[in-house]
């Protein structure tokens, strides 16, 4: 069975090392603003919610792509073929979670599990990110997060809305 990346907001401390290492691996410098994983941090409430790509089974980004640049591979990871990407931004609009964005090379960029060895998971000391085969508990956790879909707004607004909704659900 293929492994999945799961995020547990209750364990997230808001340290952002995941975004830091992701940006370093993917772009060669430290720039969390272009990381493929983001943390929605709510310092006033002492709460943080990671925003990760859910590698959706019927991925809206896949469906929206007009050039066939997006596909789902054998590891069940939704990947972008940079050669085919025309930087139209349709996938960015389509993603309900704000987890695919146009990067600096004008190519759609998203989490690709680092070819089966996710750097973010290795960096996560509190264990808020796990890379493992699914369990009922993990799937329930993922399902709760996947319910928080946005149909419009900027990517960061979609992520923030997911974060706020989870905060409300788990804290209030």
């Amino acid at each position, binding site marked *: 069975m293929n492994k999945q990346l799961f995020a547990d907001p209750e364990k997230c*401390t808001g*340290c952002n090392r995941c975004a*830091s*290492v992701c940006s370093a691996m993917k772009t060669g410098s430290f720039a969390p*603003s272009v990381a493929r994983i983001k943390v929605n941090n709510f310092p006033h409430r002492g709460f943080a919610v990671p925003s990760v790509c859910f590698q959706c089974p019927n991925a809206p980004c896949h469906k929206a792509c007009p050039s066939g640049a997006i596909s789902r591979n054998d590891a069940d990871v939704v990947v972008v073929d940079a050669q085919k990407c025309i930087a139209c931004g349709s996938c960015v609009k389509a993603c309900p979670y704000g987890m695919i964005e146009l990067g600096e090379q004008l190519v759609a960029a998203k989490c690709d599990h680092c070819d089966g060895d996710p750097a973010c998971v290795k960096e996560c000391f*509190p264990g808020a990110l796990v890379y493992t085969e699914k369990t009922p508990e993990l799937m329930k956790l993922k399902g709760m997060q996947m319910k928080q879909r946005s149909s419009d707004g900027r990517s*960061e*607004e979609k992520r923030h809305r997911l974060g706020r909704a989870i905060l409300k659900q788990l804290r209030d």
Partner: protein
Amino acid sequence: MNLYTGKLLVVDLSTKEISTEPLRKEWIRQYWGSWGLALRYYWDAVTPEVDPLSADNAIVIMTGPFSGTLVPLTSRLSLVSKSPHTGTIFTSNVGGAFGPELKYAGYDGLIIKGASDSPVFLKIVDDEVSLEDASDMMGKGIFETEECLEDVVGEIGAKTLAIGPAGEKLITYSMIGSESYRQFGRSGTGALFGSKNLKGVVCKGSQSIAVADMPKFIERVTHHKTENLFTEDNLWANSDGTAVLVDVTNEMGIHPTKNYSAGISERKETLNSDAVKAAKISDRACSGCPLACGKFTKIGETEVEGPEYETLCLGGSNCDVHDLEAIIKFNRVCDDLGLDTMSCGSTISMAMEMTESGRHDFGIRFGESDEYLKLVEEIAALSTDRGRDLALGAKRLAVKYDSADMSMEVKGLEVPAYEPRGNYGMGIAYATSERGACHLRAFPIFSETPFEIEALVDEVIESQNFNGIKWSMCYCDFWGSINTEITADLLSVGLGEEVTAAELDKAGERIWNLSRLFNTKNGFGAAEDSLPEKVLKNPLRKGPNAGKTFDPEDFSVALNSYYKKRGWDEQGRPGTEKLAELGLDQI
């Protein structure tokens, strides 16, 4: 440029001019970053006699080479200026995420000059920097101000610095808050912003930080993180947080109790790390920190990140308040109104002793937690006679009521939560700190010989020098086992240039001496490197150190030895040889 952005942001609030200037490369190898670099820039920006609350005073806020990179525990940010509370030069550091964000916006630091004639806030979004009207925010607490700053700017995830009403009212132990529960806590940073009519700063950055060899840098970071950071020396921060020190200091008999009258608290189990963990609902980290020492607690309807050790003591046992819920409320209201919990708590405990002893009736006695919460509001608003009195802080309160026998301060900065009569090293540390009584610059509580003067003097000097360079790298103190060898390794790989531990050690001593030099040019000398009357004369009660004082003769021996070993004269002025050795003779 590697590690640094190479650019400083300069804002003149009098002329409303905003500009950038390149980071002076010749200062990098001498001062490195954060504290050291801020100090050097501050030295050039003002004269030593400058009035802290005047438009002539400057504020220098500086990140370091590792800020915003994967090096753990390097998100701390230094603010250097002259304190309205003590009249000394000082640095105050804040954790959280503002420092890295400033770097992602493209700036190594921020220099603030002048004063605005109307309330403003500074907006930084990468290259777009502007001063905006803050009139609508005046009078608001820090929590509400943070929300306003984020909303007005419309940037999700922007980081903020903000003052509350206490800073607006120029209370000299008011502070600047960030991310609600973090602060540039001590020395009156809030009043500095307030005097400049600067309500806050909001920053969002989307740029990047380069290193010379990224794969090697990550490999070295991971190595040091695993081999050095994740060891017993440091993991307490993750498992217990600073509240662990409640039990530690009680065991040592140096726990501040009832305005420093006793060395142990009989009810420590109400405030120790077990008590805090029972109330904890999450662990919280600063940017880039795996340890997450922050314990976010909730009792009843009140939540706060904390309370940390100092607040548990100076807002707890030292006021004889042993109700964790009350301390959480005290913590939260200080964080919102913008008051340093340490100076506030210490001044309140002094007022409690003055009331109970009949010296002066402030209407508050030890243990009265409802009353002390009311008092915090009165202080922040300057709304009552007693509020206005306590806003003076321990030193000026002692002058007003001839009560130096009850005030616990050095150079006007209220003493932290480690009893010097039970550890002379802490006394020496408090007396020789550049900003007044501070437990951070040297922390010899674990010394096996807490009363052996010479050994303690050596330890204090070594710690102060090391902290000079440590805080110039933005390290958090909770990487307790960090050293200059690891730092030199990471700098070398990050910069692509060879850096040695020896040059970093020298830089630390240079930075400490430069701080001292500023103070001496401002009239500070041996008389000010002193300890409170209580410490010198009153025997401590209760616990393993009952009966002890730090006798004036012993203290005098310690101070003279300290000066001699540092190469300073009998007034504590760095000698010409020492200055030449450190490259400070031309400054």
